[in-house]
């Protein structure tokens, strides 16, 4: 029993996209432009030479926020979307009817249709491929060369992520919607 979340030291991101590749390999994501669980959001530098704003250029790694109050879970007519014992938001392909209501309801564009199961899929913090085998890291975290990602149990005060969130300021995305996202962008 844990409550997993991820802290992202996003200013360290160098846009190498090793995480995207690792995720695809780990979870066997099929090719196709809509098929991705994680992505790097880019913001180009603003301004004209010589007044270019260096700070405006950022890379934002992102994925499902594993909201503690997840709109996707609330709207699911068959409870196919559920919180597992680690508060990871999961989709049960046995119960998903592919109404795609959750894709509409997610404020973070985190979901897509998986062509193998013909149901909705998204990041599950590598629950099937790694956590189930007793591992404590996700593929994206393990592969990141600049250590952007820290994955861990938010309920354990001694975990690395809990310590980080006590000592670093962070921001969250679309918090005002009340979704209680569990990705934390370290400032």
């Amino acid at each position, binding site marked *: 029993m844990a409550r997993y979340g991820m802290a992202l030291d996003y200013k360290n991101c160098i846009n190498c996209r090793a995480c995207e590749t690792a995720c695809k390999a780990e979870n066997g994501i099929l090719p196709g432009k809509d098929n991705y669980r994680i992505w790097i959001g880019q913001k180009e530098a603003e301004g004209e030479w010589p007044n270019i704003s260096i700070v405006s250029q950022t890379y*934002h790694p992102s994925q499902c926020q594993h909201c503690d109050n997840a709109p996707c879970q609330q709207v699911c007519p068959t409870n196919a979307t559920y919180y597992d014992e680690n508060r990871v938001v999961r989709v049960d392909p046995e119960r998903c009817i*592919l109404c*795609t209501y959750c894709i509409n309801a997610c404020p973070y564009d*985190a979901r897509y249709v998986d062509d193998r199961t013909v149901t909705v899929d998204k990041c599950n913090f590598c629950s099937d491929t790694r956590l189930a085998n007793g591992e404590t890291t996700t593929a994206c975290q393990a592969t990141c060369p600049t250590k952007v990602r820290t994955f861990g149990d938010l309920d354990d005060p001694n975990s690395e992520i809990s310590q980080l969130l006590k000592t670093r300021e962070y921001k969250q995305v679309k918090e005002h919607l009340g979704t209680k996202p569990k990705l934390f962008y370290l400032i």
Partner: protein
Amino acid sequence: MNELSIKELFRFEKTPLNLLIAILTVGLLGIFVAGATYYFIHGHHAFNVTRQHPWGLLIAMYVFFVVSSTGLCIISSIGHVFEVKEFQVIGKRAIAGAIITLLSGFAVIALEVGHPVRMLIYNVLTPGFTSAIWWMGTLYGIYLVFITFEFFFLTIKENHKWAKIFGIGGLLAGLAAHSNLGAVFGFLISRPTANGVFYPVYFILSAMITGCYLIYIIYGFKYKNSYPANIKAMLLKLNKILGMLLGILIFFEAWKIITALYGTMPERAETILHVIKSPTFIFGEVILGMLIPFIVILFSNAKAIKPMVYVSLAGMVGIFFMRYDLVHDTLIYPMDTLKRSEYQLPPTFIEYFPSATEFAIGFGGIGITLLLFYIAEKVFNLDVDTKH
């Protein structure tokens, strides 16, 4: 019920209009079957829906059909639930129409939802009580049972007491189901243009307007514009009701737009600004769906019957665009979640145009409505009995 042989089923007066409708029906059924077949072979890839625009024409057509069903049910209840005399003539035909349009809607949505059979199973086994889709689906199921019994007691085993009881049940279930369908959009906190009280209320209002348009079309076709006195009295009253409803709708829409634009909150204001400049809104929703019918009623002092039949056809085209835009407008604003210029492209409004398969299934569904209506007119006596 009427005695019916196969030969009788295919016999109809060969007027040019009837022949045209017959060809249209067969054609639409043909493309429905073709669309369904293509979908069964290629799955969801036959549709142009994407990750960012997951709902499309088929959802719009489903809404179109169930709006028609609810509208017919509400308008017919003016007669046999609220006992307004003039409206008692439309009871049977309107309820038959409500059942038929609902079934057509179910046929379309069964091809949209990826796993319809699984849906029936897990809606019962693991119901999602916080889901507006669950409530909408369940309530529409209950509604279908009620209006089917209502039709049974109106037509097959005439019993006015039971017809009224099931009529009230059907009306309440229909109102609940349909406002829940509005809530499917209204509950989306991720979509500021849809989120809020507007859609659940608007759905009921536009359903009533759709019901009026359909009554004009159905009776206009049936009587070829020469109406008996009782039908004429009903259609005249309907003119007033429709005029008032359109007035309210225009008022609602205007305030929805003004409040959305006011304060220029980007996700809401930019989306609505984009929407009100689109031709489907201006020509479809506003001109065809609202202004032309409203102006005709206004300038005829609510005495237009013949023109209303034609205007109602335009009105239904407008209603279609209202459904289409409802889905599309909800989804066009990109989810700007740290993807400000993903892969170097600045985010723009999301584009969507239905695929041929979506057109075939969605519009083909109208063929199902026409066919079932034809059969219902043959099998049942849908006119009010003169002895009443």
